[in-house]
């Protein structure tokens, strides 16, 4: 009997040694140590063994059980450790090829969402316009320099009998009278517009390109004051620009607003020291003012009852003023070089 048990143990050792995986080991365990396993059978037979031998055999069985169990555990750990093969998880990944949105698109999205939060509705108005909407209805004098061939692009087309020459809109302000007229057509008694559109001027240098984008806010209602305009400007500057940027308001002149002023913001590129983009450390953000009564009238709002404010600023300009963007030439914005585009 002792020999049989010793044989069983050797057989188990051999099988454990040959086992390839955890499943094999489990089979071996069940085969020898399970409830009906080969070793367990001997335990059941113990009571048939004479007393004097029983104790000795019992000790042998226990010992065999113990060594098989410890061999199984050792082998199990070996197999497990083998599975943990060397692998470099820091290997550079295979990137998904994505594209890029243009910085102007980011700028337009950000500007429109900021103004939408305080109740302005985004619009996009015409890029090709009649003189009437671009100048005449905005109270421009007939001789105003913006109306001549040196500053505004004119289209080679027949003049409109009522609205005059066809031109490329030089500013988003051309939408003021159109939006007021549309508001009245829709039965609205007020206007809250943020018009973001392409605009065109005959110019080209580090801070001017012939085609650019502006955004124009127009608010018309019964109770509107200069303080509302100031509040709107402060809201925008505080939310659009990071960090501490100073703003200043300067009196200015526009035919379609009265009073008019220009808003400057401290230059981020040179930190107010003066550089290629700014002249004196201040960057012109754009113009603003209270809507001129003639313009309200042309839009169909009675200036005795209604007042309004408007502001019109360059999209590229304000975006270039953002902290740490580092673009100091507006022509770069319109570059189609992928090495630039892909950065955004």
């Amino acid at each position: 009997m002792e020999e049989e048990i010793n044989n069983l143990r050797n057989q188990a050792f051999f099988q454990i040694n040959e086992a390839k995986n955890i499943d094999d080991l489990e089979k071996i365990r069940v085969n020898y140590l399970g409830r009906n396993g080969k070793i367990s059978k001997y335990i059941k037979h113990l009571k048939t063994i004479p007393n004097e031998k029983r104790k000795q055999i019992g000790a042998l069985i226990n010992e065999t059980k113990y060594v098989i169990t410890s061999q199984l555990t050792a082998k199990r750990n070996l197999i497990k450790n083998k599975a943990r093969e060397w692998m470099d998880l820091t290997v550079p990944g295979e990137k998904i090829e994505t594209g890029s949105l243009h910085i102007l698109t980011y700028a337009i999205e950000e500007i429109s969402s900021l103004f939408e939060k305080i109740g302005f509705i985004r619009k996009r108005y015409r890029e090709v316009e009649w003189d009437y909407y671009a100048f005449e209805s905005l109270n421009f004098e007939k001789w105003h320099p913006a109306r001549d061939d040196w500053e505004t692009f004119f289209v080679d087309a027949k003049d409109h009998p009522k609205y005059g020459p066809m031109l490329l809109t030089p500013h988003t302000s051309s939408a003021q009278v159109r939006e007021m007229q549309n508001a009245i057509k829709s039965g609205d008694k007020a206007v809250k517009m943020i018009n973001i559109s392409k605009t065109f001027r005959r110019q080209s240098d580090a801070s001017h390109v012939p085609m650019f984008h502006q955004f124009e806010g127009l608010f018309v209602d019964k109770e509107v004051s200069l303080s509302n305009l100031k509040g709107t400007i402060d809201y925008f500057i505080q939310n659009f620009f990071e960090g501490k940027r100073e703003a200043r308001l300067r009196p200015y002149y526009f035919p379609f607003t009265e009073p008019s002023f220009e808003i400057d913001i401290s230059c981020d590129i040179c930190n107010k020291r003066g550089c290629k983009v700014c002249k004196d450390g201040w960057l012109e953000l754009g113009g603003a003012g209270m809507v001129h009564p003639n313009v309200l009238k042309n839009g169909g709002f009675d200036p005795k009852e209604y007042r309004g404010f408007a502001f019109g600023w360059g999209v590229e300009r304000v975006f270039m003023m953002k902290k740490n963007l580092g673009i100091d030439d507006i022509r770069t914005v319109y570059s189609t070089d992928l090495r630039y585009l892909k950065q955004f």
Partner: protein
Amino acid sequence: MNIKISDKFLREYIVTQASVDEIAKYLSLSGPNVESIQKRGGDFIYDIEVTTNRVDLMSAVGIARELSAILPRFGIEAKLKSIDFSDQPKIKKGVKFEIEADPKLINRVTGVVIGNIKNFKTPDWMKERLLASDIRSLGAPIDITNYIMLEMGQPLHVFDYDLIKTQKFKIRESKKGERVVTLDGKEYKLAGGDVVIDDTTGRIIDLPGIIGVKNSVVTSNTKRVILFTENNNPIKIRKTSMNLGIRTLAAVINEKGVDPTLTIKAILRGILLFKNICKASPLSLIIDKNFISYKQKSVKVKHSYITESLGVNLTKKEIKSFLTPLGFDGKWNKDILELKVPSFRANDISRREDIVEEVARIYGFHNLPSKLISGGILSKRQNDDYLFFENKLKRLISCLGGNEVYTSSLIGVQGAYKLKNPLGTDSTYLRTTLLYGLVEAALQNHSQEKFHIFELSNVYLPNGNDLPLEKPMLSGVFFGYDYRRAKGVIETFLEKLHIEALFNQVDKSPFLPGRCLLIRNGDERIGMMGYIDEKIIYYEFDPIILKQKHREYPKYKKPSKYPAQVEDITLTLPERTKAGDILSEIKKSSKFIENVRLDVIYNDNYTFRVWYLDPRKTMTDKEVKEIRNNFLMIVQKKFGVKVKN
């Protein structure tokens, strides 16, 4: 327009303790913008931007007047100083000098003959002040005219009296093709209709308000001069100056419309300076032909209108105190302020809003409180949503590898609308397609192996005599792309918009012959794509149609409880067989084919992966075999394909 004034010059007209930096800072906040301060010697030069409505500020006196209103608001005292003028000359019999002027061409002409010039040397202080404004010294007589222009904002001119034999000026319009040589020696050909001064012999001796002519220029040999000035028609000045490209300071000032009362003051100031500097004296009476009768304007404004427009309560006394130093003569009549407008602001101030502006800027925009807007809800109008959709399209394409560009609306390729005054031949037309801009952008990046660029912008389509139809287009270019990858991008794009697309291969310009794919949804064309050249695949969509056809979200389909059976089938296609046709043929052969995908192409061998699915149960091998045999039979018959393995 800008004016440069030295600090010492400015302080001739104002007494103040304000520092140079304070003057620049406060002037910018409440008046014209000081763009820079430059130190030169012991002096400083202010470079000041003046807006077109405030030509009165193109002068030292004008700037001093502004400061006298602004500085006290910042707690700094400032007092204007007056300037000296000569009395009207008293001469019994002056030398001959006559002016013949047409009121249609000029508003006012004023002149005097001055002789006995003993000194031609300009004093250093005057030279320095001129130089600060970038004006070269050209001898005392000419320097005096420029000095008065900087001082008072009225451009003047001197002629050599003895070089004008007729001693008579005739102001007329130029004829086309007439030539003049200006005092800087440059020759110009006139366009016709320019205002000129003729000595009545047909000889042009001046382009008034713009620049002098060489034939009557004053030199150190000059014995007698005509000191002359005009009030001009601003439109005529602008036209001549821009046409000839002569942008003198005089022209820049005159094209804005100068105070018509200034000419006589400038001549009287001139007589005094000629006396003081050149030891000269007048030889004639002043001739002054004034064709416009200037009447002082007045404006009325209610107290409440001012306070409501500002959103700030200002007292009547404060308001008046802001306006008086600016030259407004004001009187409160109960709650109404009656203001007399000074002549130098006549072009600029005509209504109550103008007064609000003056009050607001002197009060200080920086002192205004910040308040946000309020108001009711407005109606929802057409097009308000479309712009959001554009953003969605852009984001989608960029996620699929597209790089967004903004190319110019103005191109060199003929379109429906042409500019009258383009900047160059490459930007003469309004584009009717985004194709050219995108191809140009693609070629610019040709050193890159493979890329995808796109743009969503307007094109300009013909619309009779009306404004062009501004139609947004979504277009893009795949450069160096494998065709299947490019088409896959387009298919995924449409899938993500939940638009079902059909494709038709056709011949269509501007694509290579037979290399255009029309993309339809039902019967409607929604876009197209194809080869422009061997390396460039171009596509375009109409975003407005995409918006109509797309769905924000699809209708929910319950996923099947049973697994699909998947297998790969490789077919050998005869030459010129369209794989898309085979794929759709397989797809429509049984309702239990859930999906078919073209996987690999190797020579003529096309491997399709087929998903078989019965939503009601797990399919048996036998059922799958039947479906497979059926479609294999169909494609064998219809396309002559062979089944591999």
